[in-house]
């Protein structure tokens, strides 16, 4: 299967990735080849097989008790943030 430039534009937008002009043809080519490659899976007979979502069969997802374990450390965590003011993360204006 061959992906087009507009397919790549759409995927890149869904993934919120800005691509340069030079990158686009590279991804058109390599993603097309990867999609062909994974198309080999069509060979497998999988009728009636349950999709495997967890590598340890029979183990249910564990839930923790609904109690507070974490203390407020936002100042510490926000030291890695690019832009913070009054304990809030700053982003460009969303509403006019």
């Amino acid at each position, binding site marked *: 299967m061959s992906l087009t430039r507009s397919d*790549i534009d759409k*995927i*890149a*937008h*869904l*993934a*919120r*990735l*800005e*691509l*340069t002009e030079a*990158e686009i043809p*590279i*991804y058109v080519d*390599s*993603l097309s*080849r*990867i*999609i062909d*490659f*994974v*198309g*080999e*899976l*069509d*060979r*497998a007979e*999988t009728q009636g*097989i*349950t*999709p*495997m*979502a*967890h*590598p*340890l*069969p029979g*183990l249910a*997802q*564990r839930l*923790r008790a609904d109690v507070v374990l974490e203390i407020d*450390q936002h100042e*510490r*965590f*926000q*030291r*890695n*943030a*690019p*832009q913070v003011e009054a304990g809030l*993360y700053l*982003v*460009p*204006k*969303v509403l006019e």
Partner: protein
Amino acid sequence: MSALPVQARTLAGLAKGLKQREFSSVELTRTFLDRIASSQPVLNAFVTVTHDAALAAAAVADRRLERGEAPALTGVPIAHKDIFCTEGVLTTCGSKMLSNFVSPYDATVVTRLKEAGTVMLGKANMDEFAMGSSNETSHFGPVRNPWNTAMVPGGSSGGSAAAVAARLAPAATATDTGGSIRQPAALCGVTGIKPTYGRVSRYGMIAFASSLDQGGLITISAEDAALLLGAISGFDPRDSTSVEAPVPDYTATLADSLAGVRIGLVREFFDAGLDPRCEARIREALTVYEKLGATLVDVSCPNLPLSVPTYYVVAPAECSSNLARFDGVRFGHRCENPKSLVDLYRRSRGEGFGAEVKRRIMTGTYVLSAGYYDAYYLKAQRVRELISRDFAAAFGHCDVLVGPTSPTPAFPIGAKTADPITMYLNDIYTIGANLAGLPGMSIPCGFADGLPVGLQLVGPHFSEARMLNIAHRYQTETDWHLRVPAAFA
């Protein structure tokens, strides 16, 4: 003070020397720091060296050793793959995206190794976000193979493997999503163990594909791996997939007899893609096992050839979801002068991620997108089930599977970067264990034209003790694991 001849000892040997006060942890740590500094321009195995903190921790360890109250690994220096969060220390995951990220907390693996007394030397280089099989996708440049610096060390834990091979550290932590511990261990001639999914906490281990990722170790010997695995294994309430099962003393059964052990040879592991020089080394290793009393059984996993395409649906799908957290808002790289929130996301991510990471995020986005989810993602999850059933059936006839870790020895830097699928096929023998959540190891079993060859072991869930025993008995009969590249001997 002259440098200690650390290259001649395993981690177990160094721990013993510390206990018996043959040398101090400060002397030992300084020796490894010097080896790292002199090798760095050649190998590029580290992203960060925590020189002063290492010497300070070593001095503390020496005081505890003097008081005789120290746990077994006190004062032993180790390296951490730069995927593990380390409090107050740069944690980059090999990416420009995190090139400014100082972790506010320690990964559970890091905490447990600290509590066991180890001293951190620094953070090992790796493929960006663990996506790669050659260490060439690192934002911080490729790592070189200590056996031949024109060659790749394998990946994604290439820095960890090169560091142990060149004896820049006696052991290093590592992670394995599709072979990222075992393949570099094979290519660098060292021992690597990827435990059962859920055995080792993933808390603080930067996520790539959460149903496949598992932390583990790269070491000189199986005995060293047993010592360290005991320290990092076990239930962690902070990882919801951590398994609540007791951790055995992995060192207690290392010397057990192999009489009657059934070794399964998976037909699909000996396919046309296997380099005949590697196959010859694997067959020689099998004769060693026969001498040790093991019997060889032929088994087949007919769906195993589909493991690479299965992986390249499942892993990118999970990666596209996990890496959505890098948004330029809370941490990591942020673009200059964003015009809108979407512009902020798009440019921060476009600039912060490298080519292979973007390729996998887009592959994952595509296979999860409307209209393709059933055809690709659900189909791959179904084939994953078939592959797991193949392994389960094989373990009805044998105790462990043995075969090659990688189809070839180390290849030249740049040789496989043009075509992603050629690179992906390096992991053809290792991916199956991740899909099925099984533990796997790679141990050195000889050389092909001067480059190391790895023997892979894959066992049933939670059979680490048995696998370490099977690896250790081979290492008592051979000395491949003790060989050190001439430039670092």
